[in-house]
């Protein structure tokens, strides 16, 4: 009944008209409302950076699903964030090609530079560091993604170049 308690007016107080319009657009292509679950989550995340409990409940209601069903979808995918993330998410590949190419030491440098480990966000809220199994760029290993940008041939220098003390802002 927890879901029933969120009535339609609650949904529109959480989701913006724009978001609902985008979800409606997805719904046009799908026979079952719940089929739009992933797209709806992506729409919310695109605008807000992550999916809060409140948003998740609102989307569930909007799509006629239970929060549990949608939670199952949301948490299944590593790239749907159910906790706040920094402005950019660093997806650091720790899969086999990158590992052979020495990603472990690069990761150490990255962590030292940013002051965060996997799953953590820098104090200035600019970066969240997450591991990823493969980015499909093994020929240029080690690699990572910073926001939407792929960064290849990683080494300590490259890390320093990208995240020098001044750039991260919290390394005073």
């Amino acid at each position, binding site marked *: 009944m*927890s*879901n029933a308690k969120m009535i339609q007016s609650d949904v529109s107080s959480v989701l913006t008209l724009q978001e609902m319009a985008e979800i409606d657009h997805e719904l046009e292509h799908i026979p*079952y409302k719940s089929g739009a679950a992933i797209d709806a989550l992506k729409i919310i995340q695109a605008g807000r950076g992550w999916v809060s409990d409140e948003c998740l409940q609102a989307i569930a209601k909007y799509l006629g699903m239970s929060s*549990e069903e949608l939670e199952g979808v949301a948490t*299944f995918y*590593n790239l749907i964030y159910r906790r706040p993330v920094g402005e950019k998410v660093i997806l650091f590949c720790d899969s086999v090609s990158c590992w052979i190419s020495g990603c472990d030491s690069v990761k150490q440098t990255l962590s030292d530079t940013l002051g965060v480990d996997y*799953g953590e966000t820098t104090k200035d809220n600019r970066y969240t560091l997450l591991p990823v199994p493969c980015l499909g760029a093994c020929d240029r290993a080690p690699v990572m993604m910073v926001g939407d940008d792929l960064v290849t041939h990683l080494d300590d220098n490259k890390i320093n170049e990208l995240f020098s003390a001044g750039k991260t802002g919290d390394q005073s």
Partner: protein
Amino acid sequence: MPMIYVDGQEIEVVQGENILEACLNAGLDLPYFCWHPAMGSIGSCRQCALVQYQNEDDTRGRIIMGCMTPVSEGARFSLKAENAAEFREAVVESLMLNHPHDCPVCAEGGECHLQDMTVMVGHRDRRYTGKKNTYRNQYLGPLIHHEMNRCIACYRCERYYRDYAGGKDLGAQASHDHLYFGRHEEGVLESEFSGNLVEVCPTGVFTDKPFLKQYSRKWDLQSAPSICQGCAVGCNIAPGERYGKVKRVHNRYNQDVNGYFICDRGRFGSGYLNSDLRLDYAGIKNPDGSFFAVHQQQALDTAAGWMAGKKIAAIGSPRASLEANYLLRELVGAKNFVAGFSDQEAELMGSITTILQTTKAINPSIKQMESADAVLILGEDVTNTAPRVALALRQSVRNKAFELAEQMGLPAWQDAAVRNLAQDQRSPMTIVSALDTRLDDVASTCVSLAPDDIAAFGYAVAAALAGELTDNPSADATAQMLKTAKNPLIVSGSSMAHQGVIDSAAAVADALDKATSMLSFCVPECNSLGLALMVADGLGGSLSDLVKRAPKLDALIILENDVYLRGDKSQIDQLLASGTKVITLDIHENSTLDQSDLVMAAASYAESQGTLVSSEGRAQRFYPVHSPAAERLPSWQWLLRLANVMGHKKLSKLEHFDHIVAACAKSNLLFAGLVDVAPLNSFRDRGSKIPRQTHRYSGRTAMNSGVSVHEPQQPKDHESPLSYSMEGLNRDQPSSLMPFVWSPGWNSNQSLQKFQSEVDGPLKGGPSGVRLISSSLQGADLSQQIDKVTLTAHQWHLVPMQQIHGSDELSAHTEEIAELAGRGFIAIGQKVAEKLSVSEGDGLLVTQGEVECSLEVRILSRVAKNCIGYSVGYPEAQGLTAGSLVSLKADATWQRSGAEMIASDKASFEQVISDGGASNV
């Protein structure tokens, strides 16, 4: 039937089954986790690995999953092959990587499928030395304890809860090695069938929370075959007792009735047996209103003195056994015996019993209801009035999916594939009710009508079926739906307290005029139907008739019945305070008992034996789990002794329970089958009685040494073929005598398959229970009633809402059930709420004549015009009567209840283990 070879051995198998089922049917021990006979296969756990060979010459073979591989003529498999055995052991070893070593403190220990499988595959030494994953557990309400660390990711919980039981608030979350089964956020599980998670989970993730508070190992529990007293469905249960307390209730398989599952009222609603309200001694009332305890004989002598040779009458009980009711009726004479229904109930039960005996339709078992491919429900919220039936109806709508699967050549056990194929295509179900029902989510059509209009709708469907023209398109559509179905089912019942609704259901069933059509009625209590059959001759009259006679009576004897729940307070006061001596037999304190002059402490269902007749007319026997505590006696023994003291001619000749059954069977043509319900007291299995205790029952002579160091003799059971002992065999006996399931190597409830003649089939001991009523060819005589239905001018109709937790008199005394029941409520639609400017959780004053109740507001999504629902059976709603007209106004003094309602025992169970959890990205 095809032949297959398993390790060279030729095995005859059933066409279409899978090799796991074939192995289990052949008595071979093939380990499994995720497969469940009621839920089919998904091949998720990889435990049931075998080697399959292409032909005789193939010596290598390949590993296959037993539950996903259909058998075919001449197929060759090996269970013993080394690589298959290694594979199975490796699966368990990998599950053990994260499984805690907490068996000694785990409630599942000793009846754990994971333990059994670990031993079965021979996995002993753990090689993994790393850290184990840990999870944060959730508070899931007062019934279910959550311990995610023990999870082996078999998905059974989710598949049961969501796919089978239709729950929406439990699901699989996250993925790979941080998979999590739980809710989106902490809170009470919403499903009325959540308790089955305890038995479905192969390990200790979901355990019985009330049981944890007073825990004993399975092997230390004394059990007996019993019948649930929570409603009229008659689910078979196996309560477990130790130290004189019923500690938990488990499902007891009966293929025709409950199968593998029971509802939460049945599983958790027996806590009242251990409540402080229970009576231990007989008592005689002091002038100041208190009772002083007397010996059994003194009570009997006193009662006999008041009754012998005097003008006496008796009130029976729909929650007491057939035998106790029979004895009481014989003792006072049929003309002086009132069934103990309220007047309204008596009328409804009378017409239901008549209809069941005359209708052309089958009165189906639950198993038969699952086969329905079109369902019409008239007026019942089945989930709350006959919960286990609702679970069957949920399965019936899947027949469409099975039909589609058959067309595709897909076996029904291919669960994921069948569900994928069907998506949300379901067999049709039409629900016609005044208010929301808990089956609305699977119904194809929901029609909201006031009770009178429901009856009219039913008659319109009947008319349409008879080929008449109606001006009601949805009735026409419903008639069409039933007409085209192979196994149409009509469900109605007494919960609307409306004669017309019941009659119209019968009219539809007869108009259908099909050999396969089914008609089922939900009736209120565990023996309502049995009692109604007993008084079908109408000799005793109604409760109101008795009230009129009361002043002339010398003594009135009441059997297990709080008559204040059966009539107006003023009427009952008049009955009990008329100067008549009132003798009451009951198990616990209640208002009727307070007004009695003499009380006799009755044994509960767990301390006595008896026969109940379920809503399908199935007579079933329950047996004592333990001998009665203190000076309680089973009601039938009280009454038999009383008859002896009074020198009753006929009853004095009866000595044993079996004699009463025989006499009762002779008393009524419909009861002839009673003698076959269960074996006689003299039945022996290989010369021994059936043991209620397990082989490993511990501390039998020492467990009461805290009370007395004298080792007491084990109590003797002189009335049944069961013994209070561990000696004897729990094997090969008739099914009605199966106290628990256990088999060597199979300590969990999965050992049931060793008691079944085939996977998901009947028990080896044969069917249990005897159906007393069969359908007839004549058709119910309803022609007059059709004209009687008059549609009243629309006003506020008070519609009773039965609640699984709260409306039942006895289970409501269980702490956990009371917590779930919450406060008495009034259910209204959004529009009415807005008009009265109240919202969910506010208070409303409900005025019905001189009765005024203050009730909590609940908002429903579907409400018939001018109808409001109320929580029937709740103390707050006492005095309100179904169908009456009421006025509403906001209650200015109302205090909203806070969140403390669901948090009562949170602190003691919350063990927060951080590092992980569902939303750990």
